[in-house]
């Protein structure tokens, strides 16, 4: 199976370790991974801030880069960027049509929409694995990020994957389904409320006694992690890909 890694601009720029972990994990599971070098950004921040028209060229670019028949699937380690493609690209096509601009955009975006999977979804639904042979001897609590939880409906896929990790003890996060307060530009535009939400999320994570807070979206972890270090919390934010890539031979350092 040949897969295009849609890493996302945030991971590419700030979290290359997550990208390397996805490559390592998928390669270990027998998947042929490619990273199309022309990829940039899905346009989520533009769209959600109200710049739909400026998002359209980014979506078209995404489709140009990832639409090739060469790939069986497009895999992304981000719930919100995955939801952008799967949930909001169709909506952008519909809106363009409603504005009398024809089917052009919808047709251009159509090939990438059903092929795009969030990482844990790809592992469980497409590869059919929950035990990926990982090793991570730590106590972990899992925060289901909003777009993964409510837009993509990831359900218990991430926790099933984590439960199968050797050495890992999973602790339930109180108020897990509640937003961490990142919300893209919300974090800046409403920084007081955003920070209050982030602080509560960190406090809940601390209450579990876990040493690691795991999530499937680094933009949320950037906010939660930035709050944690500011609060001298000591809980470590880790992307789920890095836990699943970790093995006894090559543990996550």
């Amino acid at each position: 199976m040949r897969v295009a890694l849609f890493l996302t601009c945030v991971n590419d720029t700030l979290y290359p370790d997550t990208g390397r972990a996805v490559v390592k994990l998928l390669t270990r599971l027998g998947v042929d991974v490619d990273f199309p070098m022309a990829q940039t950004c899905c346009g989520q921040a533009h769209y959600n801030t109200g710049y739909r028209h400026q998002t359209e060229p980014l979506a078209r670019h995404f489709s140009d880069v990832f639409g090739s028949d060469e790939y069986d699937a497009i895999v992304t380690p981000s719930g919100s960027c995955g939801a952008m493609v799967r949930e909001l690209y169709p909506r952008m096509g519909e809106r363009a049509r409603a504005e009398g601009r024809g089917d052009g955009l919808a047709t251009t975006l159509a090939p990438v929409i059903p092929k795009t999977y969030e990482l844990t979804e790809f592992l469980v639904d497409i590869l059919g694995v929950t035990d990926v042979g990982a090793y991570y001897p730590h106590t972990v609590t899992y925060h289901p990020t909003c777009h993964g939880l409510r837009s993509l409906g990831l359900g218990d896929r991430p926790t099933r994957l984590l439960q199968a990790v050797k050495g890992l003890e999973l602790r339930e996060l109180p108020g897990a389904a509640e937003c961490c307060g990142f919300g893209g530009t919300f974090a800046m535009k409403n920084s007081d409320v955003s920070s209050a939400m982030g602080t509560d999320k960190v406090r809940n994570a601390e209450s579990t006694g876990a040493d690691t807070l795991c999530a499937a979206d680094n933009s949320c972890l950037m906010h939660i992690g930035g709050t944690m270090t500011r609060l001298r919390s000591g809980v470590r934010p880790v992307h789920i890909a890095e836990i699943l890539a970790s093995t006894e031979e090559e543990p996550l350092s």
Partner: protein
Amino acid sequence: MSGTFVGMPAFPEAAREAVRNTTLRANLRHATHTIRDKRARAVAELDDWASLREAGKQIKDHTLRNLEHYLLQLEESVTAAGGTVHWAGDADEANRIVTDLVKATGESEVVKVKSMATQEIGLNEALEAEGIHAYETDLAELIVQLGKDRPSHILVPAIHRNRGEIRDIFEKEMGSWGRPAPEGLTDTPAELAEAARLHLREKFLRAKVGISGANFMVAETGTLVVVESEGNGRMCLTLPETLISVVGIEKIVPTWRDLEVFLQTLPRSSTAERMNPYTSTWTGTAREDGPSTFHLVLLDNGRTDTLADEVGRQALRCIRCSACLNVCPVYERAGGHAYGSVYPGPIGAILSPQLRGTQSEIDASLPYASSLCGACYEVCPVAIDIPEVLVHLRERVVQGGEVTRHGTKVTLRPAKGHAAERAAMRAAGWAFGRPAALRTGQRLASGTRRIHPRTLPGPGRAWSATRDLPKVPAEPFRDWWRRTNGGQTEKGGKK
């Protein structure tokens, strides 16, 4: 009541104050979490919740598509049942109609059952200006009125107050409005409720004019429906000689049968009850029973303009259950007042900027008062996709475009205050259209990472005042990929 929402600051400023108010935070946290959990249990009891939700959505959509037909049918039914129908295009017109109707009775006092529509139009203030005193009779509304406060929740307008605060308000204020609070009043719920009961009973028995809203209006029979928990509504609806109901035009349903859906979804969503304690229905006037005069004031006030918007119109499905408020993490921390409207929370953030337009500072900021977490959409009993409408309204704010105001299509200019953001989005869009430009930017960031500050100046403080910045890595992923040929030339385990 002195508290109005006129001249409210933008949401972030109002929320900043609320976030630092520890009493408010504790009150809201306790109240919203309690009702949130109860609602989840009440909804989980029904196997057909998803079908009820879909049915509610479809009934509302069908009615809104044929609004003119059903409104005319309603007018005919109400008239035939002995009532009088008035049409009010906006708040001023509605206030004038109601004020004139009260004046014609010769009365200078009215009792009110809690009504969002009359708060929306500022009816109490309009009546006061004509020397007519309006007494709120809903317990929470009474607390708000006595405290010269503003409502902060759709269903429990005094949610921001705790028992001790309520006791103090009763003790201090009841005497100047009517019967004083009993001596030695404590903050136990039973004593507080009894104090309110005694205070209000006097008003119910004296009032000749009642003013209400309605949860539903049934077109086929001209019947109005109020659902409530305290019984004050039934007092207001039955004891006075004249009843004036002010109702938004979107509250209509075609038939009694349609109520079957909403009388299940509304109580479970709002108070987490299987059935609300009091459901009052009335059809025009009845001989020797209840009010002998009935007026229905149908209120538009921006609703048909909202209806003209293909994406935004779904907000008109709202049945004012407030489930979206109770589940909203932003509402829980910012409180209802920050939304600068009688409609707070997620639904308010999409309703107010549509009913009032996006021109004021507060209305232009409301579409951004959300992290788009989607919890509101998940609990909405009529499936309003609030995040979708929020993003749609953000677009209206930053890009402008065609909207309907007062029945006429107008083209809005982009709102002020977004110039820097617009430029940043354009620059990012340009770079993201060119992978080489993105790579140059990434390399620049990586190359200078040792001199990056831990906190940012200027607008960047909005991030770094409370959160550390992520450390920029030595190289972006794409450089690693190219350098190691996708990791193939890298030694195992090395990062």
